[in-house]
């Protein structure tokens, strides 16, 4: 009996999701290359342009990380809500709400030292995102309204309302586009690499990932959250306040998305700009899936997607290859991640081929 094989099922589970995500990436790059080649471009040139940027210079690397930072926030937000089996499709709206909140604190609360100003702006953004998501969760828990529909609708409300603010009452004089006043210097996030947009926002989001992961693995709240997510009825029998856990978790998810908006305002744009997000909220969904809904796994997953996104810049600047190929690859990644069985089957085919080879070799060896 080889019972020790089962010893660490917890780790083998984790390993299998890492393996799964890894091969999803490999397969989509391979399949992406086929598409590129079929349409008459050079896969080598394309990948060189995409990955060259991130890995050839420090600045390129920093650009990738700064592109990935908001995705990390929204990815963690989605992954966390998913742990109580709730779907936060509202990260986009929460991101805008957090950004507007941070822009207001950054521009109108002045005469503060940076050490107070930055945390205050982040906190207000955190609260703004949290309240919005919390209200949705309350509606979900007490009336049974679908949180997916509510957040999707609210996204429009929030994005349009912040647009109104940026084009109306909060618009600086003489500005041609919808934006708010510049934030005070004391609210700007410190840069990690000079002359890039990579700021301490990256450290903040890594800290958030670590805290959330710790909360899930090591605290009573995280334990109750996992029980609630996996089996609500058993949670009730165990005396867990399921409604409270659901609402708090969803609010926390929204709060993290809100911080992502603040990071964009305080670290990149220095003001709220209408339409500043290039789909960060929705990209978070696929990143969370790629990370197998592990908050810490979101960090590398967002980095990988960040590479592709940053790659579009060089791709359009240095080649005539359509940047839509990057979207194709991203979509392929998601398709493969969503179909773990497909990956297992492909791997099995490979194994059978290589396995047969090995057998032949062994057989040949015996003959000799």
């Amino acid at each position, binding site marked *: *009996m*080889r*019972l*020790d*094989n*089962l*010893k*660490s*099922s*917890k780790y083998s589970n984790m390993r299998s999701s890492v393996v799964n995500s890894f091969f999803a990436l490999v397969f989509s790059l391979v399949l992406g290359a086929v598409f590129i080649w079929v349409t008459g471009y050079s896969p080598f040139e394309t990948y060189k342009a995409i990955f060259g940027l991130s890995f050839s210079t420090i600045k390129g690397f920093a650009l990738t990380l700064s592109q990935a930072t908001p995705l990390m926030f929204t990815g963690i937000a989605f992954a966390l809500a998913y742990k109580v089996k709730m779907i936060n499709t509202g990260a986009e709206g929460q991101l805008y709400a957090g950004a507007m909140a941070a822009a207001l604190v950054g521009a109108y609360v002045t005469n503060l030292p940076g050490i107070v100003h930055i945390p205050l702006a982040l906190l207000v953004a955190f609260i703004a995102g949290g309240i919005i998501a919390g209200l949705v969760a309350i509606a979900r828990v007490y009336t049974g309204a679908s949180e997916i529909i509510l957040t999707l609708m609210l996204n429009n409300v929030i994005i349009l309302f912040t647009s109104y603010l940026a084009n109306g009452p909060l618009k600086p004089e003489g500005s041609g586009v919808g934006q708010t006043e510049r934030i005070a210097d004391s609210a700007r996030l410190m840069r990690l690499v000079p002359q890039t947009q990579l700021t301490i926002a990256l450290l903040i989001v890594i800290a958030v990932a670590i805290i959330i992961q710790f909360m899930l693995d*090591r*605290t*009573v*709240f995280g*334990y*109750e959250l*996992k*029980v609630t997510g*996996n*089996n609500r*009825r*058993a949670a*009730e*029998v*165990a*005396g*867990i*306040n399921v409604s409270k856990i659901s609402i708090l978790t969803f609010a926390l998810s929204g709060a993290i998305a809100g911080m992502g908006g603040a990071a964009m305002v305080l670290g990149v744009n220095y003001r709220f700009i209408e339409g500043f997000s290039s789909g960060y909220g929705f990209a978070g969904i696929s990143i969370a899936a790629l990370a197998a809904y592990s908050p810490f796994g979101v960090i590398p997953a967002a980095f990988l997607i960040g590479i592709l996104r940053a790659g579009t810049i060089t791709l359009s600047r240095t080649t005539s290859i359509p940047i839509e190929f990057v979207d194709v690859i991203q979509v392929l990644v998601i398709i493969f991640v969503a179909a773990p069985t497909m990956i297992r089957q492909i791997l099995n085919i490979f194994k059978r081929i290589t396995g047969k080879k090995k057998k032949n070799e062994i057989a040949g060896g015996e003959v000799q």
Partner: protein
Amino acid sequence: MVEIVRMEKITKIYPGTVALDKVDFFLNEGEILSLLGENGAGKSTLMKILYGLTDPTSGDVYYHGEKINFRRPVDAIEKGICMVHQHFMLVPAFTVTENIIAGSEPGKNGFVDMRRARKEVRDLISQFKFNIDPDTKVENLSVGEQQRVEILKVLYRKADVIILDEPTAVLTPQEVDDLFVILRRLRAEGKSITIITHKLKETIALADRVMILRDGKLIRDDVDPSKVSTNQLSEMMVGREVDLQERRPAKNIGDVSLHVEGLTVEEDGKKKVNNVSLDVKAGEILGIAGVEGNGQTQLIEALTGLRRVDSMELLLNGEKITGASDGFLRAGIAHVPEDRLSMGLVKEMSIKENMILGYHREDDCCDRRGVLKRKEINDKGNRLKDQFLVKAPNVDAKIDELSGGNQQKVVIARAFSHNPKAIIIAHPTRGVDIGAMEYIHQQMIELRDKGAAILLISADLDEVKTLSDRLLIMFEGEIVSETMPGELTDIEMGLLMTGGHSMIEGE
């Protein structure tokens, strides 16, 4: 007798366990073979190999004397070996005929020849006297009738060998009798039947021959059911003497511990529990027997704080308990829920995490800041796993990986180890094998003798009769009888459970 199937030296190794160890198997034409064994003994695995659902690690399968190697069930079905699964695979919105032909529709040019299909199905039904309307939708059929549709599916595919996986698990006693009539009729038509089961009485009533597996090994393949008792069979199954019928009455019954008065629960305008009062004394097991759906679920939920009640006074050792389930748990009323997987356990989580569920806020599990004590939880999991004989590689194994009996042991271990003053136990041995059942009964008696007040709700009449020190019968939300066990015959109990209240009193 002609041998139709032979399996030689079948070994199946799963990562971590040997499911089958050089098992030989044979099946004769026109016989009913009962494949008997506890959960995890390997009986399903053996049949899955025959049916082509899984490959043996080593060993050969012969069918009509010819060596075969089915890669998929379809290959087996083509040759006439079919399986009726425990969980039915029917489309509720389709008619009986549509379900039966699905997958092997008669027809030409891509059209289904429904006329031919209906005629074939009708002939089949009359040939085997199945008494079922081929044009009703499956969703309108009872469980027993649905099973007959599954058997018809198999017959439609011209099966000669029929394997039935736990066919009686979902049936009422009457439906079981009907099924046996059908199976005997199939045998008379020359079909060879294997039933996978762990029910002893049914085996003796039905089978021509009994084969017993234990821990992946063949114990006997030639038992004549007419010459053995259920006790002898269970001994062969478990490997030691088992006695589930022995009563061990309480010796130290104390004062009233759990006092319930005037409990009424209304649901959809109906009184599901109507003004029930009961007392459970320390050191006693109070049993509640009854047909399911007579208010037991609502009673349990009320007594564990899971449901708002219309009226109830609940005292535990003189103290009034109100509020939600966490309050009840903390006051010392433990709960073994009716359905372990949907209410008692989180199957995606580990044994140790499940061992603390509901007690995870106690000092031995977390500190004041709400951080879990990992080492303590691990130690506790290990201690309880050993103490309650949970068979698992380690405490990090997921509940999903355990057998039903071991899952139930986790629930029992958790509830029993937290020194409950009173405990509400519902269907503690449903779907567990004999070994686990005996063990759980022992544990309940031990807990009782330590002075806990135990309320046992069970649909298993034998269980309630054996364990209870006092026995209530519940019918339509009311307690209709209170007796000492043994005072009533099974027939009298059955009458009371189905509303024959006045008849007995009238005598």
